[in-house]
C-alpha cells in the first residue's frame, strides 16, 4: 500500500515523513524522523511514556494516527534543551533525582511542560493530576512531583515582579 507524505513542525523545525496507513505518530517520530525521545511502553495509552505535545496539548503519540498530524506543531523532550542549557524542568529532574531508569522521563517532562505552560504556579495536587497518566516504576513519584514544583517556583522566581508573583 502506498505511503502517505506527512509534514509537520517538530520542535520548531519543519519535517516531512512518509507514513504507512495506520502508522502511529510514535513510530513516525522514532523510525521516520529519528527523534528517539518519546518511548514505546505499552502501545495502549496506559503508561504515558510516549507523551508529546501536539499544538500545545499533551497527547499520546502511540495512539495518534500519524496522518492526522499534518500541519501541526509537535514538541518532544528532544526539543526541551536550548543547546547545552537544560530546560528548567530537566535541571530540576536532575537535582531532585527524579529519573532512575529514565524510561518514563521524557513522557513525564512533556506532561509537566503541558502543565506549566498552562498553570505556572501549580499546587502539589495539580502536579499529581498532571502526571497521573504517566507511570513510573522506580521513583515512587515523590521526587518527580518535587522536581516539577521546584521548576515551577524557579520559573516564577525568574519572572520576579511579573506574572509569577502577580498571581494571587
Amino acid at each position, binding site marked *: 500500500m502506498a505511503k502517505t507524505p506527512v509534514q509537520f513542525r517538530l520542535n520548531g523545525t519543519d519535517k516531512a515523513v512518509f507514513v*504507512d496507513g*495506520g502508522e502511529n505518530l510514535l513510530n513516525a517520530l522514532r523510525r521516520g524522523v529519528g527523534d528517539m525521545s518519546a518511548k514505546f511502553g505499552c502501545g495502549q*495509552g496506559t503508561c504515558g511514556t510516549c507523551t508529546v505535545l501536539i499544538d500545545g*496539548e*499533551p*497527547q499520546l503519540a502511540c*495512539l495518534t494516527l500519524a496522518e492526522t498530524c499534518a500541519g501541526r506543531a509537535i514538541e518532544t523532550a528532544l526539543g526541551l534543551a536550548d543547546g547545552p542549557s537544560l530546560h528548567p524542568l530537566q535541571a530540576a529532574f536532575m537535582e531532585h533525582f527524579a529519573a532512575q531508569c529514565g524510561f518514563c522521563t521524557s513522557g513525564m517532562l512533556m506532561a509537566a511542560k503541558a502543565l506549566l505552560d498552562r498553570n505556572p504556579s501549580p499546587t502539589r495536587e495539580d502536579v499529581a493530576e498532571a502526571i*497521573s*497518566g504517566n507511570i513510573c516504576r522506580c521513583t515512587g513519584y515523590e521526587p518527580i512531583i518535587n522536581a516539577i514544583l521546584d521548576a515551577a517556583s524557579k520559573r516564577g522566581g525568574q519572572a520576579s515582579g511579573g506574572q509569577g508573583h502577580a498571581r494571587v
Partner: protein
Amino acid sequence: MTVEVKTFGSMNEAAAALASNRAARFFSGGTLLMRAINEGDTTIATLVRASDPAYRQIRSEGARITIGAGVRMVDILANRDLAFLHPVARVVGGPAVRTMATVGGNLFAPSPYGDLAAALLALDATVMVQGAYGGAQQMPLEQFLSGRDRAGSGGLVSSVSVPRPASPDALRFRKVTRVRPKGVSVLSIAAHLPVTGGRIAGARVAYGAMAPTPIRARAVERALEGRSLDAAGIAPALAAAAEGTSPATDALASAWYRREVVAIHLRRLLLGEGG
C-alpha cells in the same frame, strides 16, 4: 500490516463508507482503535474519519444540549454549559487521554471503561445515528447501548443530546478506582434525582462496569421513587443495588466483589458521604 485511512467531509459520506466495507471502522479519538491496531488487529482494513465541523460542535438549543460525537473530554471541560459533566470528564483517563478521547468513542468503550456513557444514561441522553443511506435516527442511549455489541448493527453516531439539568450539581457521579488520582473503574455510578416536596420523583440511576455496557439500575430507580433522600428512605434501593447487574471479573475486581460493594458506593453517592 497497513490500513487505509479515508477522511470524509460529511457524516453522510462517512456513514456510507462505513456501511460499504465490513473491515472499516470509524476513527474518532483513537484511544480504542489505535490500541487494537498497535496490537496487530487484522480485522481492521480501513479507518473512516469525518472532518464535518458539526461532529466537533457543542450546541445549546433551549432545554437541550447537543454534543457532537467528536467532542473530546477537554472540550467538555472548557464548556460552561456542560458544567454538570465536568466531574465526569475530569476522571476519564489522564490528561493526555482527555485531549484525545471523544464522547462518541466513550459510547463504544468496553467495560470497565465508559464512565461518561453511564453519566449520559442517567441524564436520559439520546443518540443520533447517521444511517448509510442518508437518513438519521434518534434513539434513547439505553436502546443504543443494548444493541451496541450486536454485529452489523450499522450506522454512525454523529451526536448525543441531553436535557439541560436544573442545576450543574443535579447529576451526582462517583467513580470507584483502586488508584488515585487516575485509575480504571471498579465501578461508576451516576444519578439524577429530582426531589419534589421532599420526595424523589423520576430518579434515574446508571452504572458503569456493572455489565458489558453501562446500564440503568432500574430496580434502584423503582425503589427510590417517592422516597426521601435519607438513610431510611434509601434502604430499599440499597437492598436492590445489585439487581439486574452482570459485572465482569477482570484485573481490577471480581464480579463477586463488584456486586458486593455496589450498594456501599450507592449509599455514599445518595447520601453525599465521602470515602
